[in-house]
């Protein structure tokens, strides 16, 4: 029962939704399933929050190393949750001013907006910006033109990087717009780095991306079938669960 019913539920849901794609009358079922899916995803966030709470409380109660940071996490979590759910500082909607709770929860000037604007956004943007240093450092250490493949990768990366910035214009902007002798219609300016970068993106990157996309689609289709047919049961976890 612990494994059979979930397998049955996933198979029925999956195959019914596949079937609805071929029967126009039932296409709306797919939309309903997506709405339910989004609701479950929303509840999964609550589950995630509950799990975070459990882990941090365990850390604090066991006085593990760094438990103070767990306390900071919990304080930040509860403050954000409270101001967001209680709509602190949110004015009512202009259309329905008599309904105090009718305003947008992310309204400019509200406490939740303040937390997003001055804490969440700067922190997430800076975290990702940090990667610029590490990518550059890793590239500097690892990028070596050892063979043909590595040379292609390196030179394309350099051309695209320069071609998509002002450096490309600055370095190759002097090339004249005159035809190259012995060629029909090819000019020196065709070798401007921004132009070369555009050609690479349009003509040489497209085949690779297309092949990868086709491969991903085949992978998704086969994995989906394995899940629906009960061949892949890894999502059910182990039998030892309470």
């Amino acid at each position, binding site marked *: 029962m612990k494994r059979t019913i979930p397998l049955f539920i996933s198979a029925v849901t999956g195959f019914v939704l596949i079937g609805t794609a071929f029967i126009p009358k039932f296409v709306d079922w797919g939309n309903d399933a997506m709405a339910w899916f989004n609701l479950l995803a929303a509840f999964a966030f609550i589950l995630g929050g509950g799990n975070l709470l459990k882990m941090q409380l365990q850390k604090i109660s066991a006085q593990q190393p760094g438990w103070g940071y767990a306390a900071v996490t919990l304080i930040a979590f509860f403050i954000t949750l409270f101001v967001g759910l209680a709509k602190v500082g949110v004015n009512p909607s202009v259309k329905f001013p008599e309904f105090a709770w009718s305003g947008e929860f992310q309204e400019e000037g509200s406490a939740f907006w303040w937390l997003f604007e001055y804490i969440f956004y700067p922190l997430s943007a*800076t975290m990702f910006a940090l990667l610029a240093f590490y990518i550059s450092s890793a590239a500097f250490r690892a990028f070596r033109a050892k063979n043909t493949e590595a040379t292609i990768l390196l030179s394309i990366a350099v051309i695209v990087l320069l071609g998509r910035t002002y450096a490309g214009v600055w370095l190759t902007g002097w090339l004249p717009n005159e035809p190259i002798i012995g060629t029909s219609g090819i000019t020196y300016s065709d070798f401007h780095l921004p132009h070369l970068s555009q050609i690479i993106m349009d003509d040489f990157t497209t085949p690779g991306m297309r092949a990868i996309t086709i491969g991903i689609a085949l992978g998704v289709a086969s994995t989906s079938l394995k899940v629906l047919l009960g061949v892949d049961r890894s999502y059910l976890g182990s039998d030892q669960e309470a």
Partner: protein
Amino acid sequence: MKQSTLIWTMLMVFGGLSLIVIQFNRGKGEVYVREVPVEAKASSKTSPEQTYRWSTYQQVPEKEKGKPSVSFSLSRTLGLWVAAFCTLAIFSFLYGDNPLYKFTEAVFVGVSAAYAMVVAFWTEIVTNLFAKLFPGFARMSFLPDISENVQSDLLYLIPLVLSVLLLWRLAPKGSWIARWPLAFFIGATAGIRLISYLEADFIGQIQNTIMPFIVFDSKGSFLWIDSLRNTIVIVGVTSCMVYFFFSIEHEGVVKYISRLGVWFLMVTFGASFAYTVMGRIALLSGRLDFLFNNWLGI
């Protein structure tokens, strides 16, 4: 403490303090807002007409300081300083793992988890579950724009029950019950994704690759650039697909074709790498712009 660590720490503390003193003396790092009065009339036709008044505040450039209805905003100024502190604290990781970084990291984890929960609550649970099950109550509380003709959609009891079962995972006993909604989740994902990926990514991409090797314009003259471009795309996709085909040995002609495929893939990876680097650099320049322009006003 190592001597180098001590020197770096002293330098950073001294630098930070100097920055704060300079900022206060220059009067920068302040945010000014314009008050915008709002006047709204009650929407209910039955109740006596009543007017509600409040104010909203719009951020304005510092040069508008002193103009009528423009005032200093303590909360936004404080926010600017908090954002600057957060940015510098995260950047301090470049020097090494330190308590300042760990503190902001802990704040980030807490705020982002709660942020996701709040957004999910207001955009999904209230709008798509609560309003569908109890439209009357939702109309009287959070969503007054729901039409009075809307009836309860009892079908939404199913996702409600599944959601409650999902939260059962946190219970000490019977957490296996959470597998049922999870199975629905996985089954729905597999069913929807299987069709959409096959339609858009598999058939769609193959369809886009089926194009003429030789291109002529409407007057019948040969367009060699377009022909070359089409040929590159067709040969590129085919050779990459040959490289991904592992059911046959990559020997003889297949070996050379798959080698060509690898070169096309290297071009793709090189361009993707360049784009990733540029994206991160753009974020970095955004943060530096914030520090130097918005905060320091340089």
